[in-house]
């Protein structure tokens, strides 16, 4: 709405859009030069029988139409990985955003020691994912792990819990590890947005005697909704492609309980060097992700509309 008023005042719409195009051009050029070939190549490959054996054997690459897509869609491994990925993504997003919001609100409330807490929270995102996954693999080990030892000492459990050896708990463990590492980045985004909310809004709320929950729901969340939405999209994309931590934590096991889609693609494309099937799986995965993003977008815009009609 507001950008329209800018245009009207300046009434040089055309020069504005040229300027807009020019500013976005460098970024788009970098992205396109690097990505366009790999992207189109993998798309092309997904319609052929391209694989390592064919390339090294100097065999002709045949066009197979939608065969790869059909193979993937009839493969139970694909549907299993879809379920696993969706489960991990949805739960982890919820946990991470609730936690991050709580942390951001509380950090913005306190006066002393703020920076120390932020510094502590920042450590987790600075750690290499390889190290984090290995660290947790041993913390979560049922016989040798720290977690079971602590729980036993405290008296919360009597028998060891198989954090990584039980099929259901293994998924949960993946979520715990991801939460440990990624919540801080969400926190940082939300915190930055919260402190940018002008103080007078809070003051007027204090005068009104609004409770803490009402402040959170009526003032904070609506003010930072944009940031929540955008960071949720980014977290959604990263979680949907979750790979590093699972690769080292369980490598998809026990059985296929934690075999995420990215892991499946890694196996087909990198270990088996079956590029055509891996590419087909990736494009299907991207379609699902696009659908998920549209969903997030729609929830966001729905709230926007209802807010507007409410106000």
């Amino acid at each position, binding site marked *: 709405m507001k950008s329209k008023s800018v245009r009207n005042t300046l009434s040089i719409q055309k020069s504005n859009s040229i300027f807009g195009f020019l500013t976005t051009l460098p970024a788009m050029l970098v992205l396109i030069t690097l990505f366009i070939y790999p992207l189109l190549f993998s798309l092309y490959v997904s319609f052929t029988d391209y694989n390592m054996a064919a390339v*090294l054997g100097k065999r002709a690459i045949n066009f197979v139409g939608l065969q790869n897509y059909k193979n993937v869609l009839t493969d139970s491994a694909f549907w299993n990985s879809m379920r696993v990925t969706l489960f991990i993504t949805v739960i982890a997003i919820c946990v991470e955003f609730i936690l991050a919001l709580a942390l951001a609100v509380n950090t913005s409330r306190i006066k002393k020691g703020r920076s120390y807490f932020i510094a502590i929270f920042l450590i987790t995102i600075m750690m290499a994912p390889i190290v984090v996954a290995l660290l947790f693999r041993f913390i979560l080990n049922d016989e040798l792990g720290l977690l079971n030892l602590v729980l036993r000492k405290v008296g919360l459990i009597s028998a060891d819990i*198989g954090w990584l050896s039980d099929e259901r708990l293994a998924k949960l463990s993946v979520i715990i590890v991801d939460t440990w590492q990624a919540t801080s980045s969400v926190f940082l985004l939300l915190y930055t947005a919260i402190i940018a909310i002008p103080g007078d809004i809070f003051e007027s709320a204090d005068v009104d005697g609004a409770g803490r929950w009402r402040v959170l729901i009526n003032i904070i969340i609506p003010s930072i909704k944009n940031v929540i939405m955008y960071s949720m999209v980014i977290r959604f994309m990263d979680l949907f492609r979750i790979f590093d931590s699972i690769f080292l934590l369980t490598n998809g096991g026990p059985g296929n309980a934690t075999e995420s889609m990215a892991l499946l693609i890694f196996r087909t494309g990198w270990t088996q060097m079956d590029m055509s099937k891996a590419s087909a799986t990736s494009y299907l995965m991207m379609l699902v992700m696009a659908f998920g993003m549209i969903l997030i977008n729609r929830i966001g815009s729905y709230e926007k509309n209802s807010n507007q009609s409410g106000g």
Partner: protein
Amino acid sequence: MKSIKVFCLALAVSFTLGATLAGCGDKAATAGNTAEKSKTEAAAETKAADTKKEEERKPEKVTFVTQANDQMTETEKQFRAAYDADFDIVALPASELLPKIQLDAMSGTNDYDIYSTGQGAIQFGLSGIADELPKLDDWEDIFPGLRANYQFGDKIYGWPVQADTCLLFYRTDLLEKAGYKEPPKTWDEYREMAIKMTTDVNGKHPGDNGFNANKIEIYGSNYKGGNFDSNTWEFYNYMLANGGKTHDIDFENKTYKITINEKPAVDTLTWVVDNYRKYNIYPKGAINSDWAEFHTMFVEGKVALAVNYAYMFDMAVADNSKVKDKFSVGLLPKGTVKNGAGMGGWVISLAKGSKHKEDALRFMKFVASSKGSTIYSDTQGAMVPRQSDFQKKIDAAEGPMKLKLQQCLANLQNAESIDLTKLGASYDASVKIMNATINTALTGKVSPQEAMDSAKKQLEELLEKDKFLK
């Protein structure tokens, strides 16, 4: 809403663009191939010209790619001291080694001259990225199982630089406590003894009244059951003893048959799964364990019997080991057929696309020679590949090391090649299929027979796709 529409449009456009470009791709690929071909021909010509000047020419620097490990710096240092020309050692993490070598060859980058891998030789040879090698002068001196690891039919695709095999590790104190004088001789005995030695907090064993499977203090045995390569490498020790095979290859008619779902293999898997699920002689965490969890459990004194590579010996005799002086090693027990053992080891192969093959071959000859391979195995903490060198080592050793080497020799003489390596281009992927198969069977969701049937199907699909023997 508008943004979503535009976004979908962008997706659709990229799809159609890709589909139209699909046609052009073929031409470009063939053009690339011919260009490369002429390039290699030109290179061969210049090389021929170069050979004349061989005497005056200084050997070029060759690149040796291998798996990263903690002792590689030492290996490199000693190689430099013993070899007269320059070389580069590139070390990669285990999981990336084989794919990256393939990528290097496939893209025509050809940065690597020598591939040093565990079992990649036949894979490279059959997929056409490594050259066939001549016989080394003292080829017959190398352990037969180790030679077989890198030969396909009568073609040699790699020279072994170290040998390795599994040992039976057993706790002498626990055996004595359970009333046994000797380590198990058959795998049935092994299970029986493991059950007797699996002890819960109340001192009860599996099968006893009131045995608590959730509170076990000592486990009779352990297994590397995670979805990692160590799983398959352990499993084949048991399977070979029962006469199990992955496949039958008919070299003359170029046909093959997958036999992984036949009785010996299925029985072996049933044995492993029962040990875990029915008899509780493996820890619960075995289903996710890899090398590190496995050897830590043993060194921590929580396991009575274990099958592992010889490296664990050195850890178990270390000062801070809890089982120091409480364990010994021996021959792997006998299965229904024989004392099977899988042959590990390490091999070097020559890259087909190498830009300086003669120099590479010269360096390879040095590494695979008695002197070079002794440096390699000593610094890497493994065993020498030649039988005569091995005997010398035993004669020179004393104390626990002598025992270790003697038992290693006994197992090495039984050791045979793990036949997945013979699957050529599909080797690495076939190991991954087996890892997942065994890991899934351990969850108890599918029966061993179903698991192996599915493995057979997956292997057949894989070989079909990779055009095995065609």
